[in-house]
């Protein structure tokens, strides 16, 4: 297993990257931490003619607490997110999400931006981006633009980034007060991609009524999937087991044909989505009741 031949370049500025992408179009592939791309190259499932290594560009590696969100440079290693005090204290859901990604040995190399731009439907960061309505900043020939998560993930390994655009920053909103969260995954081994996963947040008012519910299912379709109908069923209720069961049935029932592969059938994934959703809603609600 050796990669097919390719040219390699390591530009030191974003305008250089954009120029290279314009020159090579879809023949070029951006190399960030390589934890997804390199296996694809080794197995010759990808054959780009040139790799553009963005690791030598200064100023793409940062974690900044801004007003109401955390802004993270696209080349920030997942391990840096894991070890940053500001992430642990101000965004525990981001920390917990990061700890679900592969292993420390992969997180040392893998980047937040790389995971989001790669858009694997079973990966954690794309699901989190969709859950939180994250904003992706990208630079292309026409300058910078901001893409919301809803418009970002198009289909399997495909985003709305244009051929000559490069992701530079991801902004992840902080959770509102009185909000609980949960991540539920089933993996065959710790650190593997999830057969199916669910992320949820529940916001309660002072009287225990649900004012906001967010629910994302991942690993069960071509992109992470926001379960809007199920969310609506929870808002205005004092959510309990009855509501969790009904919303979970709705979320899993609304799925188009889930993925089917050697690891799990579509039917199994749909049922798993239902069970994990119920658990996620229960845990998020319990945490919301305890959250300040």
């Amino acid at each position: 297993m050796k990669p097919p031949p390719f040219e390699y370049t390591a530009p030191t500025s974003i305008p250089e990257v954009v120029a290279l992408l314009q020159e090579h179009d879809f023949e070029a592939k951006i190399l960030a931490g390589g934890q997804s791309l390199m296996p694809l190259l080794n197995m010759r499932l990808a054959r780009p003619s040139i790799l553009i290594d963005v690791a030598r560009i200064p100023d793409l590696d940062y974690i900044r607490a801004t007003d109401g969100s955390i802004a993270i440079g696209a080349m920030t290693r997942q391990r840096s997110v894991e070890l940053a005090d500001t992430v642990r204290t101000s965004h525990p859901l981001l920390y917990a999400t990061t700890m679900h990604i592969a292993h420390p040995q992969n997180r040392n190399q893998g980047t937040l931006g790389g995971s989001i731009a790669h858009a694997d439907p079973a990966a954690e960061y794309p699901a989190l981006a969709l859950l939180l309505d994250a904003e992706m900043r990208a630079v292309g020939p026409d300058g910078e633009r901001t893409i919301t998560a809803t418009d970002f993930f198009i289909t399997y390994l495909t985003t709305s980034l244009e051929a000559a655009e490069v992701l530079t920053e991801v902004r992840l909103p902080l959770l509102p007060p009185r909000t609980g969260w949960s991540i539920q995954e089933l993996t065959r081994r710790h650190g593997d991609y999830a057969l199916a996963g669910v992320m949820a947040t529940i916001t309660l008012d002072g009287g225990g009524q649900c004012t906001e519910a967010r629910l994302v299912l991942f690993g069960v379709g071509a992109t992470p999937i926001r379960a809007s109908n199920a969310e609506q069923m929870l808002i205005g209720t004092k959510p309990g087991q009855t509501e969790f069961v009904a919303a979970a049935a709705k979320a899993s029932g609304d799925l188009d044909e889930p993925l089917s592969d050697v690891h799990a059938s579509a039917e199994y994934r749909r049922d798993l989505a239902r069970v994990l959703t119920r658990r996620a809603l229960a845990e998020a609600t319990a945490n919301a009741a305890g959250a300040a």
Partner: protein
Amino acid sequence: MATPRTITLSVNGTTHQVTVEPRTTLVDLLRGDLGLTGTHVGCEHGVCGACTILWNGKAVRSCIMLAVQADGSEVTTVESMAQDGELHPIQQAFMEAHGLQCGFCTPGFLMSISELLTRSPDPTDEEIKDTLGGQICRCTGYQSIFTAVRLAIKKLADARAAGGSA
């Protein structure tokens, strides 16, 4: 063939200048070009951890890292551990606690544990398990490796207390 590139990197403290094809993985550079065959190649897609090395002090998979990505970096391999025929305390602990049988996965384990104990000399059980979870061993069973890590922590603490350099 793609345009070869000349890179400079430090491996176990020795600076090397080598010309490689861009597609050369770091592990192939280490084993093939530099003759450092202590780093093993297993799955070649970043899952098994046999090829784990330290890249600027961080444990990474050298099978899914290109040699060109390591240009200007400091790489540390298992060959750096034993000094003048003396096993490193982590290696000694592996031997005493039966942390290995066939030994194929061992270089990767040693490098991952080396990063852990440098960053966190007194780790929690969870930290140790998180680190070991990234390495696959198919014969020893993880319990004796875990025991070896606990023994290594003690050996390293004793060496520090005695003013040793390890």
